């Protein structure tokens, strides 16, 4: 391409001047007249706002006091703007590349299947939805509650088929008793178990309504062996003595009890339907431990919208929307690629991957660059998705420049000077990409 550019550059001054003179030289005012509507529109809608924004960025919040570059100073001394800058950089680096890559794969693959158009239609469909609606959809998809968010529902579903959840999540021994919390979420008795004295292991914090069906009333263990009872030490309606098996208090079935001597588990038992358990005589003198597996909270999935994952999660929703756009443009480019070249490569013995890598992608490079650059510009001003998907507590972590611009100028601070400064910075960041795009377009035209 470089050779094309220099080759085209040399002869260019020779020919066009003659033509230009004939067009412009005779009636320049006609040309001006024809240009006028466009110039007025451009001036009013593009040049003037840019100029005004730049001018406004030099004034304070009220717009009356000239502050010079102070706004720019506060942009760069502000932590949240830095996060915004960092996140925008992540967005620009990741989102367009992924969307283009996916679009390329879809485009190449749909060419080969008979129902490709249907597939394309489905992939393109998210583009039809507004950013706002897509944001609301993904806010729900990523909801932390597995009964609402489909992402977590899938993860929790898969997890729970492989790992069983505990019987009594969130339960706790009654505080102030003999049992204290020990390492790893387990609870251990302070005293040691002796044969003939039943051990009381009162638990609380379980809703009676959530106990499994067929739960029996708790019984105080009897017998001369090493025994005890695990039960829910809270009767509906209150009442009852803490630590004592009262009438109407329910037994907790299937709780694992370990006998621990010198840090080693010497015996284990599970509580029966009436809450009692018995340990072998060899465990006499051991402390009893309720391992954490009895109380582990159910697996709640991934905190998609927490501060650490919120940006990747939102980028995911962006790709869901824009991969279709990339696919359609690339598929159009693909339609214009001469088939003979691929055929020739195949005849020469290249496998499909080689054809894709060495023939298809290089031929598609101009289209890929157009898509990539368009998406980059688009991503730099991403606002709606972030504003809607990120819940309040993680919005600072998900901040991007466009959102920071909005928050500074309208969302509370009402500092339109500061907002304008961010706007100008955003413009400065977009200009290199635009310049690249324009240069590329020119080069293309010369070819």
């Amino acid at each position: 391409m470089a050779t094309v550019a220099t080759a085209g550059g040399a002869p260019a001054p020779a020919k066009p001047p003659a033509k230009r003179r004939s067009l412009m030289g005779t009636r320049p005012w006609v040309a001006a007249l024809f240009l006028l509507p466009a110039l007025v529109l451009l001036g009013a809608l593009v040049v003037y706002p840019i100029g005004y924004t730049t001018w406004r960025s030099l004034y304070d919040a009220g717009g009356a006091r000239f502050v010079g570059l102070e706004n720019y100073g506060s942009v760069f001394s502000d932590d949240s703007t830095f996060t915004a800058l960092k996140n925008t950089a992540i967005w620009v680096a990741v989102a367009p590349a992924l969307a283009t890559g996916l679009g390329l794969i879809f485009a190449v693959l749909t060419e080969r299947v008979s129902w490709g158009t249907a597939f394309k239609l489905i992939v393109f469909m998210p583009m039809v939805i507004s950013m706002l609606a897509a944001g609301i959809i993904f806010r729900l998809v990523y909801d932390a509650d597995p009964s609402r968010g489909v992402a977590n529902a899938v993860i929790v579903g898969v997890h729970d088929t492989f790992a069983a959840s505990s019987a009594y999540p969130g339960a706790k021994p009654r505080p102030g008793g003999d049992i204290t919390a020990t390492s790893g979420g387990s609870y251990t008795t302070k005293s040691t178990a002796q044969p003939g004295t039943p051990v009381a292991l009162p638990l609380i914090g379980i809703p009676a309504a959530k106990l499994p069906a067929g739960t029996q009333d708790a019984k105080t263990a009897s017998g001369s062996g090493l025994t005890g009872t695990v039960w829910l030490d809270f009767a509906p309606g209150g009442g009852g003595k803490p630590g004592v098996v009262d009438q109407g208090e329910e037994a907790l079935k299937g709780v694992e009890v370990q006998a621990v001597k010198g840090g080693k588990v010497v015996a284990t038992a599970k509580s029966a339907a009436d809450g009692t358990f018995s340990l072998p005589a060899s465990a006499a003198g051991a402390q009893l431990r309720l391992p954490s597996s009895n109380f582990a909270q159910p697996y709640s999935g991934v905190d998609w919208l927490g501060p650490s994952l919120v940006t990747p999660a939102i980028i995911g929703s962006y790709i869901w929307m824009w991969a279709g756009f990339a696919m359609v443009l690339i598929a159009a480019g693909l339609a214009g690629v001469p088939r003979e070249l691929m055929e020739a490569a195949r005849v020469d013995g290249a496998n499909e991957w080689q054809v894709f890598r060495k023939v298809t992608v290089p031929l598609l490079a101009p289209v890929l660059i157009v898509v990539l650059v368009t998406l980059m510009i688009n991503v730099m001003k991403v606002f709606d998705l972030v504003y809607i998907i990120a819940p309040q507590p993680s919005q600072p972590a998900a901040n991007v420049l466009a959102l920071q611009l909005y928050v500074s100028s309208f969302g509370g601070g009402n500092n339109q000077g500061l907002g304008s400064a961010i706007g100008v910075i955003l413009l400065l960041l977009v200009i290199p990409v635009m310049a690249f795009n324009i240069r590329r377009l020119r080069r293309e035209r010369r070819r």
Partner: protein
Amino acid sequence: MRTSSRRTRRVIIGAVAAATLTAAAAGCGGSGNDNKTGGGSSASSGSGSVTLPSLNGQKLEVAAVWTGPEQKNFLKVINEFEKRTGASVSFVPTGDNVSTFLGSKIEGGQPPDVAFLPQVGVLRQFAAKGWLKPVDSSVQAQLDKNFSKGWVDLGAYQGKQYGVYAKAANKSLVWYNTSAFETAGLSSTPTTWADFLKTAQTLFESGTPAVSVGGADGWTLTDWFENIYLSQAGPEKYDQLAAHKIKWTDASVKQALTTLAQLFGNKDLVAGGQSGALNTDFPKSVTQTFTGNPPKAAMVYEGDFVGSFIKDNTTAKVGTNAKVFPFPAVGSGKAPVVSGGDVGVALKSSKGAQAFLTFLASADAAKVWASSGGFVSPNKSLELSAYPDEVSKAIAKALVAAGDDFRFDMSDQAPAAFGGTAGKGEWADLQTFLKNPSDISGTQSKLEADAAKAYAG
């Protein structure tokens, strides 16, 4: 932002147990220097209590955040005003972000004549920018006649009166699920913070998570803090902190945060633990308290607007399944009364705007407004009989009886960048605190840094 206005604008009162609220009135009532409510002033007799100029053919625009039934109720006030003056008034809904809406209207040179601002901080901000027009003598006369000094002063900035607090809210209420209380064997509601924690512990033991905290919305957390601070540190300190005359690193703030951490820091008492609370927004915090058996929480703190929310979004009946008790007193202090409200201000110096404000400040307007329910007025000349149900009466009585002892929502008094912006300032800092309640001094220094920045700008 979306939800910030919800708390201040929803003042719909359900059929709440009146007894508990009367207790609130007794608990927080001042020395009763303005206890004329029962005396019946001349204001409520007929349509002659306020004289309005004739405004035939004039057009007025009034902007406020209200939608749905709240808007309908307010339109009745507008209709009455039109009938009396001959002006034609149009209502402009502002959307949820009132200050943004008005800011762009004003910058564009087309402000409405009268607007309702949900935050006192916005009033000060707008007044400082010179966007508001001071009230004239007839408005002032109505204000002096009908409002206690506390409410009048809230509408003033630097000695000039700009606004009329025509609509108020009580934000010191704890709503609870009666069946959860029954299951736990609780027969009485707590009146002190220590009792409150004990109640919460008993609820946890019974298997119901005790308190539902809507931590995904920062404003619910600021309200928690304000109630504790007002009760514990007292109204004077509250005012100083609201004006940022004392720093957030002050010992009183530390004490309040430590108190709050007794609840927030105890995973057993907060529904879903800290991370669960951070994922719960205000609507969910209410619905999860009043749905399911056992419910996901037994109690939820917020203002009187929770009542209407319960009615609209759950099958629970306010007054039967859902009841309310006043926010408990913390330490040796009195039970707090934190309030909110919408202040009417004039954005244009038109005769009509002043006439409308005069009408708003009168007992006549309050009477029309109150008749349809879901509304509480701090207007002390309004007879309590104007309220349609016992609960509104009780809440209004508490509000008026508090005299000047009530305090306005602190975060609403602060500059919006500190007290009213999602993901920034106090909202974000208290969310970080909820995530890690043991880091009290860190929270304080972050609050102070953000406050210093916001109050300076």
